[in-house]
């Protein structure tokens, strides 16, 4: 990824995190989530769970933009890592915008759009051509844009809006650029299983 694009993404993340921080001052609670996931290269919606398992972990923070009895719009930021066997490991950071609707029996459905920055590193020795000779060098990684679309279903343990929630998330995402002039982008899916919970602030409203 060129420097301009990389700079653009970083700027976007800074703005996103700043907004999240600003919102947090106006909110009485922050929702945190942690999920374990199985990452794969796949065409979205043609596969659900794939093998071999390429494990990953993600933590995220969310703030409600507005909240109604049966739904909420939210924004958030996430940080994650995955390990794709024999190929690459990736560290990523990004921002999300989503909407969740909740039924009277505690089942929820959500959709999220995300945009992030991914940095991947080879999981085995990398050899770099220098002056016509391949030499083993430390992998400095490859930067990518990481747009994503996630569909999620969950279950709230209690009726109140601060209840903890278990969820399953089907995330489709792109790795771009992947291999310029060869494979322009790579399609991935990540199947998350996680838990979301609220951290209440000690305010007068509580």
């Amino acid at each position, binding site marked *: 990824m060129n420097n301009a694009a990389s700079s653009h993404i970083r700027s976007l993340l800074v703005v996103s995190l700043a907004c999240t921080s600003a919102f947090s001052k106006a909110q009485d609670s922050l929702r*945190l989530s*942690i999920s374990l996931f199985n990452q*794969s*290269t*796949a*065409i979205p919606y*043609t596969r659900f769970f*794939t*093998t*071999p398992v*390429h*494990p990953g*972990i993600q*933590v995220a923070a969310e703030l409600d933009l507005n909240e109604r009895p049966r739904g909420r719009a939210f924004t958030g930021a996430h*940080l994650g*890592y995955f*390990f*794709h*066997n*024999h*190929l690459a*490991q990736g*560290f990523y950071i990004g921002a999300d915008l989503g909407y969740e609707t909740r039924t009277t029996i505690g089942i929820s459905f959500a959709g999220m759009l995300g945009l992030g920055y991914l940095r991947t590193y*080879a*999981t*085995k*020795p*990398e*050899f*770099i*051509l220098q002056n*016509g000779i*391949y030499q*083993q060098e430390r*992998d400095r990684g*490859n930067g990518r844009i990481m747009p994503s679309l996630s569909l999620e279903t969950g279950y709230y343990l209690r009726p109140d809006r601060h209840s903890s929630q278990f969820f399953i998330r089907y995330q489709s995402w792109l790795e771009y650029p*992947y*291999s*310029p*002039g*060869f494979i322009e982008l*790579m*399609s991935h899916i990540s199947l998350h299983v996680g838990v979301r919970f609220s951290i209440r602030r000690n305010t007068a409203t509580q």
Partner: protein
Amino acid sequence: MMRQGFILCLFLCALSACEKGETLDPGFYACTFTAADSSADHPAHTNFMDLLQAITHDGAPGVLMSVNDPVNGEWSGAAGMADLFNQVPMKPCNISRLGSTVKTFTAATILLLQEEGKLDLDDRIADYLSGEPIERLENADQATIRQCLQHSSGIRNYIASAQFQTASLNDLIRVWRPEDLLAYAYDRPADFAPGSDVRYSNTPYILLGMLIEHIEGMPFYKVFEEKLFTPLGLTSIRFAAEDNVPDGIVRGYVDLYSNLNVIESTYYSGWDYFTADGGLIGNPKDLGRFLRALTNAEVISAASLAEMTTWRAPSEVDDSFFPIQYGLGLFRMETPWGEAWFHSGDAIGYYACMTYFPAEGTSIAWGVNGNYGSIDEATQTRPAMERIFDTVFP
């Protein structure tokens, strides 16, 4: 606390994630067949070695090449590395993956079976095979054996499926069976009606391998051994099904991100271990020997060779390459140095090409232990081939 735990987890993951290179003694790459020749005395030896050095300088980890012409005889050479991690130089006698060059062997075997009266090229392949492949591959019930050989069956190429490509990347060391691969072409529209055009497709060659097994009652690669490898003395040639990663095979490398930063991929080629569309292993010298014998009608009859070299041009022209025409398991290209018959092949981390210039009686075969991304520009594009042909025919 949660943040600390997460960071710790990340570090543990990252620390445990790195695979070490496989330590191999240089003796691992000792040649298992005789390759003694007088290459050093060949009048073009220096030029050829300069060519190989240029190919490796431009991104091929290692390269093997064999040139044979009626005047100067055989020349074999190598440059670069057989193993980057262990810093083992490539030797002219090393073996590499030869990928789809096997399709010419498949076609020659089918033509031999026709000569033996066991089939007719104009029979439908469905006359011999049945079940899911015939029922679920569009056009498979109508396509003739000849159309399968000439890529004119219209049967969809499983390798072109984005689902297959992502699935193979997802499980890089999976060993695929024919039915696993065929599934990626099942229930997909054919590219065109049988016989109405030509377009490269691996899928019919899986069927042709099954056809050979159906007729001969043994694995197709055993038939290759009996009819081709052994009679022609192709001592370096073998098929991956018998030993997926044989001792001595040079390490393969991929430039997955088009930046000439490569990783090893020796164990990534499991999709072509058991099908007749790929999976060949050997030395380019034997590829050249096979192609010369084939085109001199020493393998198949002159009549069969005439069928094999009845060319057909595709409706879609690739302007970035030489004009090509399709034969039966063989291609014809028009180059500034004259007409050439050829077949090339990729495996993951490997590339090979065998060419024969009938007017000159010259064969050129080369193998590279690297591909994809920017490596291909030095080894298999039109400019890469022009550099090779220009050196051989100065």
